[in-house]
């Protein structure tokens, strides 16, 4: 370390400077939200960048969140929708990716491109049609509707990323499984999936955050009180004339927690997947 050339040290310092700057840009808004959620409304507007002091600290926002609305239920809804969608995206995405990368069949390339198209076309363009479909199917105001839409939304990217990774899984390994009498399903679940775990974790992270944060589809497909998600639930404090800012900020601060836990879980999987090492 001590033998490092000065130019190298300067370069390292610059890299760190850039990373620190980026971290601040990313974290500061979140910090401001969390900080202000512990302050009185007057303090929020008077000095938004000041940390909560004994004179300005207040838990009024959290009290409002707990007493008004049914936030426990909203959290539960959000979790059900996010985890449910995630499960189906990973399952179907991985299965489609396996088929595309493993089997030679007619229209393989075409099918792959067709699925990748979904990455480029935003699903919200089809909102009206989706709403009509959900109405006809009687799924409005159900969590099922949200899970279905989010599964469709997440699949293209999942298939795209996972099929790239699955092409990297050793053919010999799959063939060894076939010779040992494993079915294609066993080969997929037992041999291939564990080896692409880092990719699964990546896809999981990319998939779950937009779902958790989404306001659009819950508002349109499931605005009923029993099916509200956290992001939608927080809107009750945003009025046309009066906004209960400390309550909004408290709700949003609380909403960060579950997704943070999920993220930490997956990122640990991600690292473990990388360090577990390949076969060779």
């Amino acid at each position, binding site marked *: 370390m001590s033998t490092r050339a000065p130019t190298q040290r300067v370069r390292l310092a610059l890299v760190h400077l850039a990373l620190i700057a980026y971290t601040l840009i990313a974290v500061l808004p979140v910090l401001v939200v969390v900080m202000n959620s512990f302050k009185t409304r007057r303090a929020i507007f008077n000095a938004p960048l000041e940390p909560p002091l004994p004179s300005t600290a207040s838990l009024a926002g959290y009290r409002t969140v707990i007493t008004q609305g049914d936030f426990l239920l909203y959290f539960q809804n959000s979790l059900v929708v996010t985890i449910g969608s995630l499960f189906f995206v990973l399952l179907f995405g991985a299965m489609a990716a396996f088929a595309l990368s493993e089997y030679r069949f007619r229209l393989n390339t075409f099918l792959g491109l067709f699925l990748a198209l979904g990455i480029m076309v935003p699903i919200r363009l089809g909102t009206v049609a989706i709403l009509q479909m959900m109405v006809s199917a009687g799924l409005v105001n159900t969590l099922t509707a949200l899970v279905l839409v989010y599964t469709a939304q997440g699949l293209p990217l999942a298939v795209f990323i996972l099929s790239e990774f699955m092409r990297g899984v050793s053919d010999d390994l799959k*063939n060894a*499984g*076939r*010779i040992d*009498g494993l079915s294609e399903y066993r080969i997929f679940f037992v041999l291939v999936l564990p080896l692409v775990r880092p990719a699964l974790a990546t896809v999981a992270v990319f998939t779950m955050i937009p779902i958790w944060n989404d306001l659009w589809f819950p508002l349109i497909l499931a605005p009923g009180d029993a099916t509200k998600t956290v992001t939608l639930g927080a809107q009750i404090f945003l009025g046309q004339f009066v906004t209960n800012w400390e309550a909004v900020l408290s709700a949003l601060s609380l909403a960060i927690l579950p997704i943070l836990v999920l993220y930490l879980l997956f990122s640990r999987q991600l690292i473990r997947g990388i360090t577990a*090492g390949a*076969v060779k």
Partner: protein
Amino acid sequence: MHSLKLSRIVKTFGPVEVLKGVDLEVETGEFVVFVGPSGCGKSTLMRIIVGLETQTSGTVEIGGRNVDATVPAKRGIAMVFQSYALYPHLTVAGNMTLALKEDGVPRPEREARVEKAAGLLQLSPLLKRRPAELSGGQRQRVAIGRAIVREPTLFLFDEPLSNLDAALRVATRLEIAKLHRTLNATMIYVTHDQIEAMTLADRIVVLNGGTVQQVGRPIDLYNRPDNLFVAGFIGSPKMNFLKGRFADEAGAATLGVRPEHLKVDPAGAWAGTVRHAEHLGSDTYLYVVLEDGQEVTVRIPEETPIGVDDTIQLSPLPGRLHRFDAEGLALRAA
């Protein structure tokens, strides 16, 4: 009885014909090596025998049974892969027993077989470890063990030594030869390394361009190659091929002579200049340009003071000349 019988195997990928009608019979207990340059179809042929690839036409019989419609697991075969292909999430013992479990072999029987194979391959202390905790040589032994416990009719080895370093390759080669003697099993071994082919095989199948060039005992391929390809492929350094006056004198289109069958001889009829000399200690390779510009390699089994730019006379050993006609086929004295 035949362990394996291939009849008129043809395989095409789109317009490309990879195998152009391969016939082969392998006797029980025989060690047969498929050898050939990359792209010659040897791996495709092996994949067809295993059942990972279906042939375009022709039939495969294993142990006297037509297996064209049989899945790999039911063909009575076991395969050792170049990349080992061990299951990373299973222990050594788990790797070895998976196929038996799938086959419904009862537990005591499974354990007995693993114990026997582990003893044979010195794997007993490693049975509880995972593949990631093993060295390359150990992994290859596990892969071989996984094949042994299945007690197959036919063992298939797909370039099993290619990923090992030179010293380990020699050791594992000896181990496979020993294994073949101990188990007395039928083995098919694919390689592009002619040393492996020569040392291991009872019979060698030389493939090139999707056709079998010659099948025979290693020493027969060395002494009596059927054509130019086999003559050039078997033996190291490569056989010298001469045209022009040398071939004409012998009454052939091409005259072949192995580097070890050329002698430095002051009375020799072939004169030339040494262009380069490689001194290996046990051998010396001389690269000699003959009078008419053709180049030959000479292998002298000792050290020699002959160096670059020296002019020397060569004479081929009698009875060691190979004559080939214009099509490249061997001309044998009638």
